[in-house]
């Protein structure tokens, strides 16, 4: 009985244990399923979140790419704009500077033009002194307009056939009649800045006609200054030029010519012009000039002067020094200037037509002031070039430092021939070699 009861109990216990185990297993399984479902739910949610995050990331990345491109485009635009701005500002700066210089040029032009017009008006009322003063007052402005002084331009007005005389520390330059009067005279203390003095020969001798007083040259004999020049002698058929002389006690004049007839005239040769005096190392006084030729060629002559310089020396006759013999001379030579230097005589002259760009300067060597001379210029030593056209009518002189200078007149290129201006130039001249060499300005 006890045994059977025990068995039942055991069996019941086993069944209960089995049931309990199964129940626990089922419960555990249900819990596992529940956790698994929850995990799946969480996983799904996480995946949705991930997908959404990825989408957001892609969108944001795309937006960032767009923004970056936009930024890059803007930066490129900024760079391009800054480049344009720099270029524009640079151009603006250059243009402003140019405009400023133009403004200066306009002021300078107006100043120069004002002086020229004032001088013109004074000429119109026959006030040559004021005309010279007016034109002198704007010389600097007009010189600036004429451009670089590297060409040697020092006086930017009509100043043909110049002759330079140094008296102490002052230089006087004389020229053919123009604004300044019958014989123009300007002066300078430094050979750079020149101012008009006025009319060196206010009154012409009775035999001379006005408006044709050419090629002056001045020499100092003691306390007297002698001005040689050419003037029209109307009594000769053809109104030939003849040579005369005037005197003054000061280099700036006024020079007085009280002659009743020309000093030298060669009617058969169509007149005499371009006088040029020389005092040689022996104290002899000579005059060189040009005859216009007549039936023959233009010729350069020389004759000794009397000690006073007012007449030719007694018992002398003109000696022919030179006639044209080179092609560049175009059959015409004139404006002699005989220079004694280093024991030799050099005859400077101008060749070809004065109103053309073919005009130039040549030289000949001479045994003495009365020749004989030999032309030494197969080509001119000074001719048209940069900034000058048709240079000639030269005057050779020594400055206060002992340097040799050459003064000449020349046209502005493109403005050749009357009534344009033959302006006044100065350059250095080297006479140390066999052939004179025209050097730089200054």
């Amino acid at each position, binding site marked *: 009985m006890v045994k059977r009861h025990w068995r039942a109990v*055991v*069996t019941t216990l*086993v*069944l209960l244990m*089995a049931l309990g185990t*199964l129940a626990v*297993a*089922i419960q*555990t*399984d249900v819990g*596992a399923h529940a*956790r*698994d479902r929850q*995990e799946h739910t*969480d996983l799904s949610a*996480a*995946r949705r*979140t*991930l997908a959404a*995050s990825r989408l957001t*990331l892609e969108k*944001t990345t795309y*937006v*960032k790419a767009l*923004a*970056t491109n*936009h*930024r890059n485009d*803007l930066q490129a635009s*900024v760079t391009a*704009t800054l480049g344009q*701005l720099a270029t*524009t*500002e640079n*151009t*603006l700066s250059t*243009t*402003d500077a*140019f*405009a400023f210089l*133009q403004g200066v040029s*306009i002021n300078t*032009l*107006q100043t120069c033009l004002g002086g*020229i*017009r004032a001088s*013109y008006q004074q*000429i*119109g009322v026959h006030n040559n002194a004021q*005309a010279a003063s007016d034109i002198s007052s704007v010389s600097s402005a007009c010189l600036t*307009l004429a451009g670089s002084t590297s060409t040697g331009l020092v006086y930017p007005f*009509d100043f043909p056939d110049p002759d330079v005389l140094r008296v102490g520390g002052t230089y006087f330059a004389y020229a053919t*009649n123009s604004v300044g009067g019958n014989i123009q005279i300007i002066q300078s203390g430094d050979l750079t800045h020149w101012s008009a003095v006025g009319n060196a020969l206010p009154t012409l001798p009775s035999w001379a006609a*006005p*408006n044709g007083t050419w090629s002056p040259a001045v020499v100092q004999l003691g306390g007297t200054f002698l001005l040689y020049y050419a003037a029209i002698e109307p009594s000769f058929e053809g109104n030939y030029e003849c040579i005369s002389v005037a005197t003054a006690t000061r280099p700036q004049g006024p020079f007085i010519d009280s002659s009743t007839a020309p000093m030298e005239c060669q009617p058969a040769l169509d007149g005499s012009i371009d006088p040029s005096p020389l005092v040689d190392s022996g104290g002899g006084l000579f005059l060189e000039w040009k005859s216009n030729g007549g039936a023959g060629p233009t010729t350069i002559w020389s004759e000794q002067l009397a000690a006073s310089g007012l007449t030719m020396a007694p018992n002398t006759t003109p000696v022919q020094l030179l006639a044209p013999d080179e092609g560049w001379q175009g059959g015409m030579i004139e404006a002699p200037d005989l220079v004694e230097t280093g024991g030799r005589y050099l005859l400077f002259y101008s060749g070809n037509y004065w109103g053309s760009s073919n005009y130039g300067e040549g030289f000949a060597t001479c045994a003495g002031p009365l020749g004989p001379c030999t032309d030494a210029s197969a080509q001119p030593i000074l001719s048209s070039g940069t900034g000058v056209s048709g240079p000639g009518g030269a005057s050779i002189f020594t400055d206060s430092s002992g340097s040799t200078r050459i003064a000449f007149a020349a046209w502005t290129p493109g*403005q050749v021939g*009357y*009534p*344009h*201006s033959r302006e006044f130039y100065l350059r250095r001249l080297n006479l140390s070699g066999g052939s004179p060499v025209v050097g730089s300005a200054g």
Partner: protein
Amino acid sequence: MALGALVVEQVGEVDDDSGRPRRRRWPGIVLIAVLVLFATALGIVSTNEVHTNTQFDQTHSSLDATQAHTRIVLSDLNTVRHELAGVNVQVFLTDKALAQDAADLQTAQSELANARSDVSHQTTVITDLQTCLGGVQEALNALSVADQSRAIGALNSVSSSCNGAVAANG
């Protein structure tokens, strides 16, 4: 094992008794069957649980990976958003600078146009003045040698330029 031995023992005891063998065996068989059912169910449940746990582990692993990935993506997103904000600031500043530069350029171009216009005007004035000056200078040269007809001709030839220069300068 213990349950099996118990069942065998009960069956043996029943077979040795005469007259009541069928009635004494039936509970044991039922018990055994029940136990087998229990064991089977338990096995199924256990297998299911194991499978469920395996799935859970896989799901959990996937969830971990997804969450890690999400964190990375969110980190990337945060970085991109930060960069985007920076780019937007740059866009704003660059746009502002461009507007200023464009305005400066327009001003400079306007000034340049004015300056060029001035230069053009002044060039005309200079040309007129130079022409006028040349003519007056020629007239001066002509008049100084009493060549009045040449002087008048020279002035007439430049009168329009002189008038133009005067008009241009008020």
